[in-house]
């Protein structure tokens, strides 16, 4: 499972980097989104991989750490998703604004001279 997960994260992140380096702003946006998915998965995995384990401790009993998943990365991921979502939405707005003002979707605001 470790190999599959790490390969998946690596491939998604690498695709994101490639897209971020492209000249069109929509590609950059898609790249940033892919990278943030990869990072979210990465944070999640950093709490170790668990199958079928609850992150919550039962009330009134002393919890046994061996059967519980680490809840902290899950909380972190939740925060990271929300923040990433908001900033990406903002970038989208700026992108549309730039398209309207400059008439091109090139990240430099002008078409490269051929």
């Amino acid at each position: 499972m470790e190999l599959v997960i790490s390969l998946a994260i690596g491939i998604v992140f690498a695709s994101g980097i490639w897209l971020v380096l492209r000249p069109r702003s929509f590609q950059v946006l898609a790249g940033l989104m892919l990278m943030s998915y990869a990072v979210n998965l990465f944070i999640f995995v950093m709490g170790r991989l668990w199958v079928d384990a609850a992150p919550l401790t039962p009330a009134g009993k002393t919890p046994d750490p061996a059967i519980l998943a680490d809840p902290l990365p899950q909380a972190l991921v939740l925060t990271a998703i929300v923040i990433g979502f908001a900033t990406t939405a903002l970038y989208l707005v700026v992108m549309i604004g730039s398209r309207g003002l400059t008439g091109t979707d090139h990240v430099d605001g002008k078409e490269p001279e051929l």
Partner: protein
Amino acid sequence: MNLPWLDHLILVPILLPLLVGAALAPLTQGWRRLKFWLSYASVLGMLATSLALIQLTDGGHWKDGMGVYLAANWSAPFGIALLADRLSSLMLLLCALLALAALHFTQMRWGRIGVHFHTLFQFLLMGINGAFLTHDLFNLFVFFEVMLAASYGLVLHGYNAERIRASMQYIAINLAAALLFLLGTALIYATTGTLNMADLAARVPQLRGDDLSLFKVGASVLALAFLTKGAMWPLGFWLPTTYAAASPPVAVMLVLMTKVGAYIVLRMSLLIFSGSAGGAAGFGQEALLYGGMATIVFGAAGMLSTDSAGRMAGYGAIISSGTLLAVIGYGQASLVTAGLYYLIGSTIAVAAFLLLIELIDRIRTPRSAMLALTMEAYAVEDTPVEPVGRGVPAAMAFLSLAFAACALMIAGLPPLSGFVAKFGMFHALLNPIDGSAVPTAGWTLMTLIILSGLIAVISMMRFGVRTFWASGAIEAPKLHRSEVAPVLFLLGLSVLMTVQANSLFGYLARASDDIRSPATTIERVLTHPALPGPTTPTTPATSLDEVMP
């Protein structure tokens, strides 16, 4: 004297701008005047709070000069801890002073275009203050994002093609840096099982083998995120374009944001990678030293190559970042004090210069040509009026003298604070603590600092001569009091720093002693008792190891 409510003052610099910013959001532009004054009151409140915090930390109210605040009363390292010590209180004061100047400057023009300027400004202050106070890595990320999200909006403020182009790159760079921040934080959590900085500092010495190298990878990735913010070469290429494009009051706050990056790097490297950190001791110092030096060279070259004042200020900020990072990386205790003095002095100098640039621009493009450019694509309901009322007499004399003062401060020539800072750094560099000879790196750093000063003089002179002497028949621009006052205020601060250099150096020496003693910080943060609640908790876990495998 034991007043428990005083502890809650630590929360005020975060809560106050949050509440005021939220309260301002629903008000329409018709309430412009009220919005301005509410915003102003909030900044004055922050100023008073930061002065009180300095008094509390330095006056001995808190043990070891450190005030710890446990958010939601969760004891560290489980909950988020906020730490107010001498350094963070001073940074809060610097932030409040710059915000006051920037806000006062917006009174006539910039606060009138665009609708949510004051809300965004307050949120930006909340993010910056939070980043100074927090003692938790992930919470730091959240405050960074608050600060950045507000700054995206503010850089776009006054919306023209140049700003939107600069913003696109600024936002893309910072989103990528935020992802690096998350990666670094996750790796650090994976290896140490904690995000509290004091707890981290306590656990790092026990790291061995794979965990240690993985931790170092995490720390490096994290440092990349801070150094992008702090504009270390080659990560700082976005800075001059963004500074030149942003409106002046916003650019002032951006200058402070680059210093947030340097502040975090300073704090982390002294707390977590201190001499007692075992295998991780002194990690990354060389990279900071040489990276900082490269940044100075890059900034100096850029300054020489440009003739736009906005870009010049940007490169000035890069030089000051580079000097700071090199000073941190040099790793000599006595240098930190002078470095902190330099941090404050150079921030104020670049901020004053940025505000001055807009006024100087009016000599070249009289009337409100620039504002018209700004308004080009922005549909504002009520057109901002020209500054009314009496202009300031002797505008040209004021502009040229203020420009000369800024040039002196940025270049580090006597008699203003820039010189005192450089003198302090040279004194520390020439007197190594153990009495040994000054290493080559020390000589190189001194040479670079002197050269960058020389280059700053040359480019500022060139700009000054072109603007004030050689511009032909010029008409004195119309300046409003509210625009002149902030510049005078910042210059006055610099004079005050020079006159009071002795007591300020004393305070900074105590502040750098604080951050250089990780053991005290660890002890103070981790043993801070949670307040007894109305219900007693049932069998609380005593350490993280019990909950975590």
